[in-house]
């Protein structure tokens, strides 16, 4: 019975194979599961309306002051 010796036998590969293009599409698959870091966009419809009121107040003043002045 021939004794099997690992170090004198040519390297035995695992034999595992992947589907074609598997790695090409793999990273996209994972990135889809990762939250996207987007820069914050300040919406006009944001809940915090205080800046709109401030802007409106300035506009009203700008429009009414010259009238008040002329009177």
């Amino acid at each position: 019975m021939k004794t099997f010796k690992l170090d004198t036998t040519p390297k035995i590969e695992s034999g595992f194979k992947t589907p074609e293009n598997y790695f090409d599409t793999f990273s996209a698959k994972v990135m889809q599961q990762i939250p996207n870091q987007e820069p914050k966009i300040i919406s006009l419809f944001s809940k915090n309306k205080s800046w709109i009121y401030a802007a409106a107040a300035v506009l009203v003043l700008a429009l009414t002051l010259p009238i008040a002045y002329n009177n």
Partner: protein
Amino acid sequence: MQEEKEFIQELLNPKTQNLAFEKLLKKFQKPLYNHIRTIVLNHYDTDDVLQNTFVKVFRNLDKFKGDSKLFSWIYRIATNEALTFINQKAKKSGITSETLQSKAIDNLKADIYFDGNEIQIKLQKAIAQLPEKQQLVFKMKYFEELKYEEISEILGTSVGALKASYHYAVKKIEAFVTTN
């Protein structure tokens, strides 16, 4: 080391995080695939575990303290995910993980993503005789060709103990293949 420190900063900075993480993915996807596959054997299971591993890496980036290399930290997560996976799969099927492994090896012959022949299957059967840790050490050294120092960082076992483990694994495998 400096390069790694800078890369870790990129991974932790929300502005550069996603780009850096893609770089990490591309660097580690193949070696981690091979690592996980030697544990779970089947391609589809490997695909699942590999995705879960990377998602886990991303979610735990802020917990990476940098006291080990990024490489060993990621490999440790992959190893744990793979081992947990097979244990859970075995539990769900009401069998031991040894029986599950044996079935997975039997399925290799018909697996389209396995192009090995008799000797590859015999080797897998021989490895399956070993205790779990010894199997890991053997696979990481023989199939993945990792250095003992790298295996030591991943498994948290001394290089001396790893060399002894590998030596015993080889002897048992040789005996199994000779007599089967």
